[in-house]
């Protein structure tokens, strides 16, 4: 009896429990609603290559950016106890910088000015500078993360438009499009590989560095981590810079998907999804311990939700309303006060049961 409840508690207490249950609910809902949701077909895309297609593929494909962002957001949340709401705007800045590096002042160049890799590096540097700016405000001026990042949230898209002087560069180089779509001959979308690479990098970082230990220590108690010889300011600053790198990777995927950029629309509301992924993964939004894999799973669950809503013919601009309801339900369920009340009620029920059994 005791062992059984222990196992049950372990399963329910696991961080992966909530996202897995959410995923299960979505899968069951879609099975009932329309089983063809799970169909996998091989079709020829516009270039004539056979590629995998279907809702599941598109979830894994379009979930890539979100998963990459969720990794960075989890670490930022853990160390600083707040979230970065400027990621969408920084994606615009970074993507705009990449296109500027590739095109210069000519919006529709015949040949690219530099190699794609160099342009990517430039974009990484731009995103890292934005991250460093946020980190500076948070770590050294002690401004709450969400307010500090509010600055770039407002100005970011304006800056992105300013970098390219509001031109809309188009890139016709097919190699550029391979990154965001398919490499000829490989039926799996390229962003999936990029997301996998990012996950591998973060797994290696966790394995071989003290990143996780230090960020968690700073998030749990800044003062005591300082007394133990960790520099909390440096840690907080560097997590924002690390997030910048992930944002740049997401920006690369976003830009290469369409081979151009729309300053006001690109990665719109993605910050909301990324925060939601972190919360769905069962990570505390006020910092401390974290589990990156739960966030990644959360990200794919959210993409699943988005795709499901699209299948139900929900207009894209009405989407935030539905997601907001999901967020509210999630945060209410995971709030400590509600959990306490629930456990108290269930305890009362149990004690009543045993009393009845005794009689």
């Amino acid at each position, binding site marked *: 009896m005791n062992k059984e409840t222990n196992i049950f508690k372990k399963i329910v207490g696991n961080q992966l429990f909530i996202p897995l249950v959410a995923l299960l609910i979505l899968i069951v809902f879609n099975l009932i609603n329309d089983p063809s949701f799970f169909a996998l077909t091989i079709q020829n895309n516009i270039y004539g290559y056979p590629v995998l297609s279907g809702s599941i593929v598109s979830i894994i494909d379009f979930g890539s950016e979100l998963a990459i962002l969720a990794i960075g957001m989890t670490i930022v949340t853990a160390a600083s106890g707040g979230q970065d709401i400027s990621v969408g705007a920084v994606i615009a800045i970074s993507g705009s910088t990449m296109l500027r590096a590739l095109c210069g002042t000519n919006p529709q160049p015949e040949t690219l000015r530099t190699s794609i890799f160099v342009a990517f590096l430039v974009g990484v540097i731009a995103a890292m500078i934005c991250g460093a700016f946020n980190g500076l405000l948070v770590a050294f001026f002690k*401004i709450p993360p969400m307010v500090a990042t509010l600055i770039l949230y407002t100005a970011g898209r304006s800056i992105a438009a300013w970098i390219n002087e509001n031109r809309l560069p188009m890139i016709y180089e097919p190699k550029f499009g391979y990154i965001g779509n398919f490499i000829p001959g490989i039926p799996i979308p390229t962003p999936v590989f990029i997301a996998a690479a990012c996950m591998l990098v973060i797994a290696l970082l966790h394995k071989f560095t003290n990143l996780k230990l230090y960020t968690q220590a700073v998030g749990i108690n800044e003062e005591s981590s300082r007394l133990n010889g960790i520099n909390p300011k440096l840690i907080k600053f560097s997590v924002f810079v690390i997030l910048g790198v992930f944002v740049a990777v997401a920006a690369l995927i976003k830009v290469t998907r369409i081979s151009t950029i729309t300053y006001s629309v690109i990665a719109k509301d993605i910050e909301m999804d990324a925060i939601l992924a972190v919360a769905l993964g069962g990570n505390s939004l006020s910092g401390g311990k974290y589990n990156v894999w739960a966030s990644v799973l959360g990200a794919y669950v959210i993409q699943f939700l988005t795709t499901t809503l699209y299948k139900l013919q929900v207009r894209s601009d009405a*989407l935030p309303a539905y997601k907001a309801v999901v967020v509210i339900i999630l945060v209410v369920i995971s*709030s400590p006060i*509600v959990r306490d009340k629930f456990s108290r009620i269930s305890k009362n029920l149990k004690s009543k049961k045993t009393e009845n059994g005794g009689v």
Partner: protein
Amino acid sequence: MGKEKTIAKPLSQNKSLIKQFNMLTDTNKLLTITIIVFVVMYICAVIFEGKGFLSPQALFNILINNAALLITACGMSVVMITGGIDISVGGVVALVSMSCAVYLDYHGGNVPVSILIALGIGLAFGVFQGFLVAYLDIQPFIVTLAGMFFARGMTTIVNSEPFNVTNESFVALKDTRIEIPFIGTYNKRGIFIPAYINIGVVVALAVVVFFFIMLRWTKLGRHFYAVGGNPQSAMMLGINVKRTRFISHVISGLLAGIGGYVYFMYVGSGSPSNAQGMEMNAIASSIIGGTMLTGGVGNIIGTLFGVMTLSTIKDIVASAGLSDPWWTGITIAAMLCLFLVIQSVVISNKDRK
């Protein structure tokens, strides 16, 4: 009392200006900085951009253009003084204006009921968010972020196309001008043109006066400061922290509703892109007006100056030839950044002592 005065006077005369400044409370310190910045900026505007800024109507135009922002910023200041934040206001303003527009135009409604709708929407958001923040102890930023997305999404669900409202009694209300006696300018022919304001400005100024008095002299107003300054000690003093937080969010929601209607009267149309980025401007004006993000410090008069400063910056940017749309966003963000850093420095100076 009299003795104290005689002692205090020579002392303050001896001390330099900087020392006097350091003796002020945080609230007054930040308020002083704000007023100085506004005056300097306005003088710069007059010197560099010509005498257009000098006429009384220019000042009133700032109020007319920003009445809705002023009202929502007052609500924001109350929440921020209590130590929270409310970023749903822009979404609520958009939802209110769209709902009222649809009600007035498509359902042939009348004006008083539309005002009730506006107040109802604002109140509903305030009560719900306040409950989640105060009684379930969820981070205000997350709750109101969700509130913002919900309001924005609902706006497009109510109606996705922008349209102008043609309801007669509403248009009459919208175009009502209140002329101010004895203040005005003479045009080239020497005819006196009185300065005017609209109903929105009257509402906004009433809100400012009401909340200034409330925050300064009522029990509830002082509770806001106490809870924002230190919730723990506020609780020790017997203040109901949860209820105070709850009320602050209700006030912010209600003011977002009122601000939404005033905004609706200003633009006279319903559109999903209404009030884009208003939450940001409201937060920026509160911060520029000397309200601390960490709570416990702030002043409604400062918020008034914050809104005026923000608007003057926009005017200067526009008339300085930087008409590209991105410059406004960048300057506001830079301004916000500057004031956040000033606040941080002022507070860390205090800590060092």
